[in-house]
């Protein structure tokens, strides 16, 4: 489904602020797999998602998605294959437009947009039904502006929008990080439901060890722009938040020797 091979991305190249966000990352995701990505701050986990989404074009390497070489596709073109939910609840919806209009926009994700009416009668009934399925009671407020909704409600709607047309790939970028615990649980539940119901292939970045341990069938741990662990199957199922924290502790201890010192030691002793 998704085939990432040898991608690298360096931001602010050649300046003192140079960040090597991705370094030769390889990742292959099978159809229907739900991959959770965790990592320390600045490890490149969101950058990896953005590379797939096309927010920027990678420096090296290739990205294949659903049989297309999307490496050089602009973001809006990749949108026909990809559904996204952002970290910021304000990013995924148009606040001054109504719930109905936002959904109508999502219903044509990646398709041509002509002079047909955006909100037709038959679409409205489908829409209320699917909004009711969210269980947030928003079906009666379908003509209200999104700006009047809470962060949790917006994220739930963004999720509905991202999956309105079945995406080849669903990208969730820390989509519960900005929510209160109750809303976060709700959005996680909805995410899990839609992924299971539609058998979606998904990638989710998270900071929550709890989510990382309980969600998905595969877990990828990133550090300094590389993938350092890849847990699958039974190994993934056995993982507990404590195990993940232990792995992070391991990484942290390794960090205490800085890279040049490590290089020196390696030369001296190996």
């Amino acid at each position: 489904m998704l085939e990432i091979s040898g991608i690298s991305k360096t931001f602010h190249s050649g300046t003192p602020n140079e960040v090597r966000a991705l370094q030769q990352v390889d990742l292959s995701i099978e159809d229907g797999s739900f991959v959770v990505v965790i990592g320390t701050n600045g490890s490149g986990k969101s950058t990896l998602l953005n590379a797939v989404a096309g927010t920027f074009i990678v420096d090296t390497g290739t990205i294949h998605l659903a049989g297309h070489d999307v490496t050089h596709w602009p973001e809006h073109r990749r949108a026909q294959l990809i559904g996204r939910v952002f970290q910021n609840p304000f990013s995924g919806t148009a606040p001054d437009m109504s719930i109905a209009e936002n959904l109508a926009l999502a219903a044509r994700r990646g398709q041509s947009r002509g002079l047909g009416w955006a909100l037709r009668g038959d679409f409205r009934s489908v829409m209320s039904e699917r909004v009711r399925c969210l269980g947030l009671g928003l079906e009666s407020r379908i003509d209200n502006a999104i700006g009047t909704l809470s962060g949790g409600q917006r994220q739930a709607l963004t999720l509905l929008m991202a999956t309105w047309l079945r995406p080849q790939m669903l990208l969730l970028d820390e989509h519960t990080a900005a929510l209160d615990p109750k809303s976060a649980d709700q959005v996680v539940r909805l995410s899990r439901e839609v992924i299971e119901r539609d058998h979606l292939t998904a990638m989710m970045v998270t900071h929550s060890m709890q989510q990382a341990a309980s969600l998905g069938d595969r877990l990828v741990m990133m550090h300094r722009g590389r993938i350092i662990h890849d847990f699958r199957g039974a190994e993934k199922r056995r993982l507990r938040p404590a195990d993940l924290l232990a792995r992070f502790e391991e990484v942290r201890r390794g960090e205490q020797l800085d890279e040049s010192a490590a290089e020196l030691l390696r030369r001296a002793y190996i």
Partner: protein
Amino acid sequence: MTLLLGALTIGLILSLLALGVFISFRIFSFPDITADGSVTLGASVTAILLVNGVHPLLATGAGFCAGMLAGALTGILHTRFKINGLLSGILVMTALYSVNLHVMGKSNLPLLSTRTLATEAEGLATFVLGGTTEIGVLGWEVSPRDAAVLILVFAAIVVAAGLLYAFFRTNLGTAMRATGNNDQMIRALGVNVGNMIVLGLAVSNGLIALAGSLLAQYQGFADVQMGIGMVVWGLASVIIGEALVGTQQLGLVIAGAVMGSVLFRLLIAIALRAGLNPNDLKLITAGFVFLALILPNLLGTLRRRRAEA
């Protein structure tokens, strides 16, 4: 009465300008100065075609299309060449000044003995009324020409505003509004944001050029200076309109822009009648827009202070 009719007619004509400015400023939050040039562009293209005997409807349509091209050019400078939005508009506006002079061949082109939409309207009125020279409206005597022009302009504005409203409810128009509202979101839904901005500015400047074209035909000349300060006029109309309707609802906002333009023009006519020096007009307009822009913030601060006290 003639004064009032004139103010109404010009206010209605310039409501097309207000609608154009509404698209660029309010929908895209794009400070599009191209308007100053495209008002004149619409006027000059229409005027030169009329002088050369082209049918008024065709000439007006050509003015509209010329404006669309100008707007698209600004959009392309901004989206393809990554030039700052304000600067893109300034570049095109500046270039249009020379273009307009070339189109007209001189700085002022009179349309006095030419067939225009205004003379067509007059012809229509004579045909309907059979040569009456004065008609009574609510006890006032008005010339059939003024009345006919006003009615036709009103009809044209209703059609234009209706079309615009309908357009913004289509799939394409909804995507365009979303582009201005949240470009990150609409990109993630597969819309090419650059193309939307180019198209939006084209429609915006098309309407603005149409305003220029109609204005030239109404006042009987096109002048290379006639566009100066028009952006601020349009903005003033949009702001008054928003204050009048007090909502974000699309249909009402569009109607508000039209009403704002008419009201603004009436206020100016009254002020001029009361002895305002015409030279001060632009200064006062700019001052008014300045006040309208800072007033919401100012009121908010005052209210907060009062709440704290």
